[in-house]
Each structure stands twice: as C-alpha cells, then as structure tokens.
C-alpha cells in the first residue's frame, strides 16, 4: 500500500545558525523542537513519536533519543536515533511516514542539534574499515567528493567554473535569507580565486561547518489540515544506499541516487517536469550536479552545462537551494533543506519565494557517497 499523500510535514523549527558560543547540541535540539511545535500549533503532549540524529558533538551518540526525550519530558510510543550523516534528516522523515502509516504513532518529531562549529569538528574521518584509507592520506569529507568531481570532469568535461555556478547560486539565495550564515554574494571569479582544499575542490566548493538545531514534525495529512500552517504533503519518498565503495565500479557517480529519486517520483506519480523548486543536498558543489542528472532534469554528464546561465538561480528554470543550502545557509547536514522545502510549498519565503511552488524536491545524502534519499513535498 502506497504511503503517498497520507502524511504531511505540519511544523518546522530552526534555531539561529552559525557560531553559537555557549550553546550545546542538546539545548539547540530542544529550542528547535519548541519552535516546530509553535509553528504547527501543537502541544508537547501531542507528540508521540521522537526520532533524533545525534550531532557530532552529542556525547550520547546512538543513545541520543533517550537523552533528548528526557530533556523534553516525552514518553514516546516510538523512538529511535539514526546516524547517516546528511541522509539522516530525509531518512528520519521517511521512518516517521512509515510509523504513522503503520499506526505506531500519530505525530512524530524529528530533531537534530549540533555545535560542530564551536566544537571544532573538522569532518576529517577516513572511509574504509580494517584497512582504513587514512593510511594513504585519503582523509576528510572532501576526499570522496573530490573523486566524484575529478571523475566527472574526466568523463564528461565538467569544469571548475561550472562547479562555481552552484556555489554562486547558493550564495545568491543565502543573500536573500536573513538567517543564512554566509550572505555576501560571490562570483565565479571569487570561486576560482579561493584556495584549493583537495584538488579539484576549492574552498568555495565546500559546505560550511555550523552550530544550530532543526526540528521537523510529521503527522497524518488529515490531521495536518487542522493545524496552524498549510501542510506540506509528503507525496513521494525513496531511498537507496550502497555499502560498497572500491568494489562498486561507478561508486563515485553515486548511481543509487537514481533509484531513490525514481522511487519517490513513481510513488508521487510525478516527474522532473512537475518540480518547481528543488533543495538538493550540497555537501560539495559537485553533489548538486549529480542530483540534477540523477533526477532527470538533464542527461548523464550534462549537469555542468545545466547549471550555467543562472538556470538554478531564483528566476531560472529550476531554482535550487533557495535558502542557500549547506554551502551558504548553514551546514545542518540537510535538515534545513527539508525546512526550506516546506516553506516554499507553503509560500512563506518572501523575496526568495518561487512562484507557484506547488511541488518541491528535497534530497539528502550522507556517509560520504553511500546513503541517499529523495522526497517530494506538495502543497495540499
């Protein structure tokens, strides 16, 4: 039985973002939860499901659901924590959809808080298990996305200037978002002049590192209609993962993303032409180009030319990351992509509102290139 249209995001909440000295992952999560409750017009007692993502600075790790639940004074019918990096937000929303459809809870809060910026987190882990790639200097988040960019450049002729177009679009959108961390507009030349981090990726190809908290409340579409804000109906969801890296011939291309997107489109009975605005997970600029190809907005290998000419900027054919994304709004590991998707379909984005944004695609990717998901949100 399809879950298309059966649930909706009824409330979203985000704290201030950026460098938040003195704050903790726990209190940022709690603040975001309160903000989302207020947004939805719900009371704490209405929430009977709690799904969480431990921040990089959450000492509880996989027991985060217990500590956050205790801090909020909640005894949920359903609870869990998930650690899937930038894929966590989308995957938790999908768990919420399933839990509600199965009748295990009626109203599920998904919560994240982190102080990665003030905590000095550098995202310097290496992939690999018993034989860790760090042994060969293959360390940090930029490494695997660097492979993706380098291979894409060699196979399809994609250029660093095309990667720059993604950074420029995100920054332009962030300049129109008073809550964004990086708001000064940049040019392709600024990107080209920024220092190399891991060739071929420059500083302005990389996402930020941020403090902040985000909460997303999911409930049945029926119930959402009676709440404070117009519901963002979850029309389609999909996720796909690969656990294989070196043994996966085209691992760097993240081909499983195609499956996640195809499943979401099929469930929603929609296609790329129906999408008016997209929030595409952007840990690095190359990721947006891959999503555009995998979603079918352009053909394989044509993501570079696609992002040229302002096509993914507001006013272009497909505005992407309209709040600024991980690259410029704040690095909430994709949680704010869901928030912006909700706000776009509600029509509450002010000067950065996309006209007639009845359908928004939101994607997430985490654990380097391994985990991916897609979600289609629609105005009720």
């Amino acid at each position: 039985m399809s879950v298309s249209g059966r649930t909706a995001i009824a409330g979203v909440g985000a704290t201030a973002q950026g460098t938040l000295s003195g704050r903790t992952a726990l209190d940022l999560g709690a603040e975001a939860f309160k903000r989302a409750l207020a947004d939805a017009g719900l009371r704490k007692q209405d929430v009977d499901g709690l799904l969480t993502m431990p921040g990089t600075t959450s000492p509880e790790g996989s027991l985060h659901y217990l500590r956050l639940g205790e801090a909020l004074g909640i005894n949920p019918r359903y609870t869990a924590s998930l650690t899937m990096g930038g894929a966590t937000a989308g995957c938790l929303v999908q768990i919420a959809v399933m839990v509600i459809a199965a009748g295990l809870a009626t109203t599920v809060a998904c919560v994240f808080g982190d102080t990665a910026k003030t905590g000095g987190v550098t995202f310097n882990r290496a992939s690999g298990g018993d034989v860790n790639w760090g042994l060969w200097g293959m360390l940090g988040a930029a490494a695997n996305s660097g492979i993706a960019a380098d291979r894409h450049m060699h196979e399809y002729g994609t250029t660093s200037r095309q990667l720059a177009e993604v950074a420029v679009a995100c920054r332009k959108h962030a300049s129109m978002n008073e809550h964004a961390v990086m708001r000064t507009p940049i040019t392709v030349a600024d990107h080209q002049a920024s220092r190399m981090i891991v060739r071929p990726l420059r500083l302005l190809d990389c996402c930020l590192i941020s403090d902040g908290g985000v909460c997303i409340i999911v409930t049945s579409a029926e119930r959402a209609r009676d709440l404070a804000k117009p519901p963002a109906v979850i029309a389609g969801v999909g996720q796909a993962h690969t656990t294989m890296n070196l043994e996966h011939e085209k691992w760097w291309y993240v081909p499983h993303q195609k499956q996640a997107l195809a499943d979401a489109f099929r469930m929603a009975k929609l296609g790329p032409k129906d999408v008016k605005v997209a929030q595409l997970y952007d840990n690095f600029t190359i990721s947006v180009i891959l999503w555009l190809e995998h979603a079918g907005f352009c053909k394989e290998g044509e993501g570079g030319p696609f992002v040229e000419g302002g096509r993914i900027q507001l006013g272009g054919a497909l505005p992407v990351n309209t709040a600024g994304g991980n690259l410029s709004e704040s690095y909430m590991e994709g949680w704010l992509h869901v928030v912006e998707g909700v706000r776009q379909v509600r029509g509450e984005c002010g000067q950065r509102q996309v006209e007639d944004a009845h359908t928004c695609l939101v994607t997430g990717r985490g654990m380097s290139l391994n985990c991916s998901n897609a979600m289609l949100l629609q105005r009720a």
Partner: protein
Amino acid sequence: MTPITKPAPEVNDLTRPFWQAAGRGQLRMQKCAACGHIRFPIGPVCTNCLDERAEWVQLSGQGRVLSHLVFHRGYSAAWKPHVPYSVIMVQLDEGPRMFSDLVDPDRKYIETDLVGHCVQVWFDGLGQDMAVPRFKVVEP
C-alpha cells in the same frame, strides 16, 4: 630495511597477511576459492558468493590511475607535514581498486593530471615484518 615513513597500519588477524606480504615485497589480496573473485577491501567472506575460503594471491602491482586528488590540507597530524600530496585511486590490472598516496618525494606530479597513467606498487618498510604498499608513477 627502512621503517614505514607514514602512519603504520592497525593490524588484525584478518588483515595481517596483506601487511606481511608487503614486508616481503609482494602485493597480495584474497582470491575466493569458490568463485575466483579477487576482493578488496579485505573481508571475512567473498563479496560475490559469501564463501569463506580464500587464497592470498600475488598481484602484479601494476595498474592505472582512475582519479588523482591533491590534498592541500592535512586532515590529521600525521599527514599535515606532507601537504601538498597526491592521492590516487588505482585500477589494478587484476581487477580490484585501491587508494594510495603517490610516492612523489620531489613533488614532481603535484601540478600534473595523472588520470590514465600507469603506476607500480612500491613498498614502504620493505624488509620489515610488515610494510605498506604505496604507488609510484611508471616513467615512460
């Protein structure tokens, strides 16, 4: 006999044959006794057929560069002194792929794009009980 110049591997029973072979100047990987698949990373069962039986077969140590990164930032204390340094994804002739830093002490290839170039394994710590396979460019 020279000691390993960069971080030393964490060795366990599963991975020990890989590092010990490198100490003897050999690149060896697990070949499934049931289906013949050569796997890397090292694992307890064949990723193709799940058979546990495997032979550590010697590979030629030759391959081609699939991707070439240059790290201008050091993400660990051990690698900070080495920046900028190259990391390559190697397609080995026998099928498996692996990452390696490039053995390039004079930083000759930092500005070069090595994709498609032939590389050959080199053993860091050769003659010791264990060594680390790394790769260097095969000069034309």
